[in-house]
């Protein structure tokens, strides 16, 4: 609403289908919300910048980076976890659950994600800090921007952009480190030996960070981000949002009220501190609006005004629409966290997380698949027996070489052979898979074609891990001619 002049104040002769941008000059505030925001910012950025440098020993021949998405080798490392492409559904599930979690939080407390943890907000906050440090607070910045270009303005602007670019570059560089060994890629980067992809992505993320946090800022939240467009579907009158308590503030008037005339005047002294503090440049007193990211900075701004005029804090506060309506009537209503909406989100979230957790816990460290040859379905041998071909694939996700003893049951007089493996006594065959890799073995099973039902007979392959003794059984079929 305030990124351009209020729409209902534009006169017909100035009507345009396009609105110029109105620069927002957020004023620094101090208070609880601001402190929480700083804390969240420090935690988020520390994790982002430092996590790739965290080492995690996995033994020789394995990357010792705690979090590494090794795209080239298709292995994803998260601390003690190593995920293979087959496990990608876990990641998908986690992302879906993250979305549901976001829905839950939004139904409870509005856009707190936007106001506190969204990267757009976090980096914008950081960039604003730099800006404030070099160019001063709201009034000073506004004055300097209006004034003519001079040495003071030039160096302050230049220094701001230089630091912004520095932060952006660090941000872009950190991104790369999640996909490559951090110390190695850093060394390669500075000696010109890194790949074009590394330079390209670093440039891309440097550029986007600089543009989005330095220039676009609230425009991203208002015009580019899809999230505010559908968040209203998750909000209801029981959701906490940053709220101006109109019943208490109105009618606003520009003088300090005392208890005596409290009935005639509201507590709001129309000082504009809340508007000045708002990073999206809106007036929270207009009610819940699209542009509001629920950062709560206007709460801090107003609280310091209330302190100064000796009125109770919380003219702007976290509250729900339902409670506000009740309060306006002088009724106190209880907070309702448990509503159909939030309970559904919570249940879905818990179920999803349980499912993912279970899948993760039961995730086979060794995966076995048996595929019957598509063609030929069977081969006749000179002695009248029939031979079937199978491919056995074993994914060994452990970091030790694994050997499996293979046997087949269900077909009498069956002989197992494999072109490149020597069969052992007792019809056992040893399949060896190197650590951390997948082995494919072609196995031939020959037997007299007796007892086939419609040319087919069930057969089971048993694999015994010679190391751990664990068993795996896979059922498939033994095929032969219809009439033996």
């Amino acid at each position: 609403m305030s990124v351009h002049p209020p729409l209902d104040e534009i006169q017909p002769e100035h009507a345009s289908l396009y609105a110029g941008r109105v620069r927002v000059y957020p004023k620094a505030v101090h208070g609880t919300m601001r402190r929480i925001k700083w804390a969240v910012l420090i935690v988020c950025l520390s994790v982002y910048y430092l996590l790739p440098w965290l080492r995690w020993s996995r033994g020789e021949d394995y990357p010792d980076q705690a979090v590494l998405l090794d795209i080239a080798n298709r292995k994803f490392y998260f601390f003690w976890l190593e995920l293979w492409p087959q496990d990608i559904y876990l990641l998908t599930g986690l992302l879906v659950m993250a979305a549901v979690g976001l829905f839950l939080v939004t139904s409870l407390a509005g856009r707190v994600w936007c106001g506190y943890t969204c990267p757009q907000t976090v980096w914008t906050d950081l960039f604003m800090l730099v800006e404030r440090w070099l160019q001063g607070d709201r009034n000073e910045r506004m004055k300097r921007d209006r004034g003519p270009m001079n040495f003071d303005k030039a160096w302050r602007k230049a220094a701001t952009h230089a630091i912004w670019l520095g932060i952006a570059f660090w941000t872009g560089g950190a991104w790369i480190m999640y996909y490559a060994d951090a110390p190695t890629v850093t060394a390669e980067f500075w000696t010109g030996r890194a790949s074009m992809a590394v330079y390209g992505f670093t440039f891309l993320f440097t550029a986007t960070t600089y543009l989005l946090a330095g220039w676009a800022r609230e425009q991203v939240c208002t015009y580019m981000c899809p999230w505010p467009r559908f968040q209203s579907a998750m909000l209801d009158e029981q959701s906490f949002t940053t709220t101006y308590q109109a019943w208490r503030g109105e009618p606003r008037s520009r003088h300090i009220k005392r208890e005596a005339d409290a009935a005639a005047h509201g507590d709001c002294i129309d000082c504009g501190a809340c508007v000045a503090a708002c990073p999206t440049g809106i007036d929270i007193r207009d009610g819940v609006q699209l542009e509001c990211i629920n950062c709560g900075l206007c709460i801090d701004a107003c609280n310091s005004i209330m302190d100064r005029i000796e009125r109770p804090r919380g003219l702007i506060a976290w509250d729900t629409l339902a409670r506000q309506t009740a309060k306006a009537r002088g009724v106190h209503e209880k907070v309702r966290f448990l509503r159909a909406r939030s309970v559904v989100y919570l249940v879905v979230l818990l179920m999803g997380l349980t499912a993912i957790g279970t899948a993760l816990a039961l995730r086979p460290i060794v995966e076995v698949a048996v595929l019957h040859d598509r063609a030929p379905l069977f081969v006749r041998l000179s002695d009248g027996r029939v031979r079937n071909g199978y491919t056995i694939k074993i994914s060994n996700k452990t970091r030790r070489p694994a050997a499996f003893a293979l046997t087949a049951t269900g077909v009498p007089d069956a002989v197992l052979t494999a072109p490149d493996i020597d069969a052992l006594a007792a019809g056992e065959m040893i399949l060896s898979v190197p650590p951390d890799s997948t082995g494919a073995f072609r196995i031939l099973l020959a037997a007299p074609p007796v007892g086939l039902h419609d040319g087919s007979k069930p057969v089971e392959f048993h694999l015994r891990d010679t190391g751990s003794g664990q068993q795996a059984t896979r059922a498939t079929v033994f095929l032969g001619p219809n009439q033996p």
Partner: protein
Amino acid sequence: MPTKVEKDSVSGRLTTGHEWDGLKELNTPLPKWWLYVFLACVVFAAGQMLLYPSVPFFTGYFPGLLGYSQRVEVDRAVQAVAQQRAETVNRIGALSFEQIRADPPLLNAALSIGRITFAENCQPCHGTEGTGRPGYPALGDDVWIWGGSLAAIQQTITHGVRSEDKDTRTSAMPAFGALGSLKPAEMEAVADYVQGLFGLPPGKNAAEGQKLFVDNCASCHGDKGQGNQELGGPPLASRVHLYGGDRAAILAQINQPKHGVMPAWNARLSAPIIKSLTLYVHSLGGGQ
């Protein structure tokens, strides 16, 4: 379309001035930068149209100032792959079968090349994955007319069977019946014996047939019908037969034998490719 911007009495906001059958639209201005981004996209598109192939004509298209073509790109990519493959192919050519089999990644590459080559060249006769068809041997079983070792398979693929190659493998079974060297009754007797080798109940004159077999057939098919790979005499003491496994098929073959032909592939495939093909055929299950 009349354009008259007015103030909407309900919202207090201006309209765009557009009107459709009495419907008016409130003006919610778009940010200017959005318009500029749109214009930048238009400029970008114009540049793209100028530089890259774009406007179609009836008989062709505007090729663009850069002369870019996806066909050329594909050709280049194919060439790059061929170059990459050349190294592998050369190694397959230079190493012995044993050396290739001792190098699993190389063996895998050879098997892949072999599989593709087989599908393109051999499949029409030998069937998918060497399934075999009447008259065309299955390659996954344990019966080999000319031998199932790697060297033997390589030799067969390279020079063919009854092909035009001067080193071709060749064998010819006499037409015992058509040439009159065996009388009809003698042929019946031989068939009586041979069907026993085939796993069917032997006929009543099998003993007499065996004598005739030893005199006429054993030199190529072996005294017990075990076959002779040197001469290309197929084994008869088997359940797998190229031209059918019943008595009629046996008699037909003694009377006027069929002889299959396999081309010599050295005319079409390079030696390393034939080597890969050999490894692949050997891996189908019958390799010795």
